[in-house]
């Protein structure tokens, strides 16, 4: 596969056929809940529903979800600890309500991250990018982003192969050689990217490219029950959170 596990999951997800707008609404609602509701129990409910929906009906492999969330978790942990350590008069100590503040901060961030991952693991970029047109993003920008999405896999492939070839020829055996190889690697990928763009230009001219790269979005009709879920779940989480508080 491609090595980008989130992308692989998005294309294989059971929710791939759902309208991207529907999924966007649901996830935006969850992110908003994570951001504005009191973290207890709001963040817990958001994170719980995002994970349950992803692993349950959307059938995202648990391993993928876990792998994807590792990196943000590391940032959240370091960031939250740094935020609640207090430096006063040169000494380090814990801020008065450190544990509670760190918990709140981490809770919000984990919930928000899980909600975004729910979107990312169920919706490929080529479904999401056309949605940007609805947000009045100019067509040229959406087209550039679409080409970026296609080419980054082509270039990642080149990157992997060039690096493997360099490694086989001992190019990464010492830090000094590694830097030299990395510079050659970056230059190789840059020239490949220019070459790709130039060749693609020739390839697309024959298919009538005159003004832009207009394509037809993959047809995915909106579903009323799913829209209802997208509206009621965040509202429900908000209601429960406010009642419990």
């Amino acid at each position: 596969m491609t090595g980008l596990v989130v992308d692989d999951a998005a294309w294989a997800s059971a929710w791939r056929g759902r309208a991207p707008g529907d999924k966007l609404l649901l996830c935006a609602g969850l992110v908003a809940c994570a951001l504005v509701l009191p973290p207890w129990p709001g963040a817990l409910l958001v994170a719980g529903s995002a994970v349950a929906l992803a692993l349950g009906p959307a059938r995202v492999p648990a391993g993928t979800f876990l792998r994807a969330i590792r990196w943000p978790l590391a940032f959240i942990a370091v960031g939250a600890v740094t935020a609640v350590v207090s430096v006063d008069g040169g000494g380090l100590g814990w801020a008065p309500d450190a544990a509670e503040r760190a918990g709140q901060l981490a809770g919000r961030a984990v919930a928000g991250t899980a909600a975004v991952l729910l979107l990312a693991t169920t919706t490929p970029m080529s479904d999401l990018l056309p949605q940007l047109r609805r947000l009045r993003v100019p067509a040229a920008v959406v087209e550039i982003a679409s080409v970026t999405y296609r080419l980054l896999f082509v270039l990642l492939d080149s990157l992997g192969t060039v690096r493997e070839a360099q490694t086989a020829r001992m190019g990464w055996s010492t830090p000094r050689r590694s830097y030299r190889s990395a510079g050659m690697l970056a230059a190789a990928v840059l020239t490949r990217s220019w070459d790709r763009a130039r060749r693609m230009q020739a390839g697309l001219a024959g298919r009538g490219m005159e003004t832009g790269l207009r394509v037809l979005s993959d047809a995915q009709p909106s579903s009323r029950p799913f829209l209802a879920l997208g509206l009621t779940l965040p509202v429900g989480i908000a209601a429960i959170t406010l009642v419990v508080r």
Partner: protein
Amino acid sequence: MSHRTLAASGLVAGYPGTAPVLDGAAVRIPPNRRLALLGANGSGKTTLLRCLSGALRPVAGAVTVDGEPLTHTRRGLRAHRQVVQLVLQDPDDQLFSASVGQDVSFGPLNLGLDESAVRARVAEALDLLGVDHLAARPTHQLSYGERKRVAIAGAVAMRPCLLLLDEPTAGLDPTAVADTLAALARLQEHDSTVVMSTHDVDLALRWADEVAVVVDRAVVQGPPEEILGNTRLLRRARLDRPWVLTVGARLRELGLLAPGALPRDTDRLLAALPEAPAVRS
């Protein structure tokens, strides 16, 4: 889709700063023929195909459709593209979208068709190429052979009268070659003329109705048996003679094959051989 004759004559073409790749090349592609364009790597096959498709403007000479010369204006090229479509060798040069369906929709949309017509064309093209099951898959997860067929579908969706394919079978294994040839046969039934460039002489003999060899910057065109049996021409073109002609000629000398046209592939050779062992003197 009416059928058109694509032709070129007196073509001089090349790239800035180098000697011309083609110099006085002429070729004629009558409707509904299977033309194999043969030549070694670097002989000028791709340059010829690019001239025929309008992508490259020759320095001299003319490309004609039914005798009408192609003009390299925006309008002339637009009309030409609806008649002739070229598919390049490397599918990654033509697949710019991560979604197979979106990619194939690009050409028909550029023709100004409405949404439902475009969807119908996309479905038809994917079906003809036998890749309809890939519609929902991302381009970057496809194998090389699958990407090649999707790139052809992108051209087929424009419904050209003539389809020019640059090395459509290069790098494919036998199964993928068979799938591609089957798809090309469906396209022909669907009234498209197919031109394929290749350096596989055995494939050309098996597949083509007519063969054109790019040699010494010009083109020699004729029936497959004649061209592919011409050892001197093939040597000049840095190509091999198809084994079945070499072996067939010898077997005919041995009295095992009837006079006349030699078989063109293994199956036909086996069928033409006598059933029972000959009594050897």
